[in-house]
């Protein structure tokens, strides 16, 4: 199942909550304000860095660019909306709003 997160990890517990439920192997998609979780060098970067050993992690390019975020954590895969749809083809979706 694809877990989709749209909130900043600094503001809400959504990313932590989703990572607490998602079983190993489940892909994680960061989009909208969720992409702040994909940025390297921040205090919450440890969440995604730890998650990468268990999950493929994706971040939506348009949302990163909108917010001026270019430094993405190593191993996070930057995808466009076409890639988002591709993930949805492969997985059912658990939206973590």
């Amino acid at each position: 199942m694809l877990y989709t997160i749209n909130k900043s990890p600094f503001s809400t517990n959504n990313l932590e909550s989703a990572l607490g439920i998602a079983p190993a192997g489940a892909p994680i998609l960061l989009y909208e304000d969720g992409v702040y979780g994909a940025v390297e060098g921040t205090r919450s970067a440890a969440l995604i860095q730890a998650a990468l050993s268990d999950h493929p992690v994706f971040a939506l390019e348009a949302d990163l660019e909108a917010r001026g975020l270019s430094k993405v954590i190593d191993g996070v895969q930057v995808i466009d909306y076409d890639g988002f749809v591709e993930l949805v083809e492969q997985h059912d979706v658990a939206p973590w709003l």
Partner: protein
Amino acid sequence: MSDKVAVVMRKAPYGSVYTAEGFRTIMGVAVFEMDISVVFLDDGVYAAVKGQHPEKLDMKPLGDGFPMLGDFGVKKFYVHDESLAARGLTVDDLVVPAEVVSSAEIAKIMGESGKVLPF
């Protein structure tokens, strides 16, 4: 084509409409013979705590409705063990006899449902 769906309640009631609409969705979709699993998780466990009295806010109690959902064929209620514990609650504090489940079991319930509606 599948008639399964998981309604995952993660938000607290009254501060926003989601709990009320989650409840309405469960009932409204159950009438059309969907096979529904209801999951209380994070602040969503507060949706089902006993003793809600929003009358002073001129609102209607939300918790009261959950036990009636059985009449609409909704019988699968699950509550997250860690979310209860973090809030100092037990399943006896809830208006429905939900099954207490782990994170892994919630992932499995959602996975088997295929479709997840978040409220």
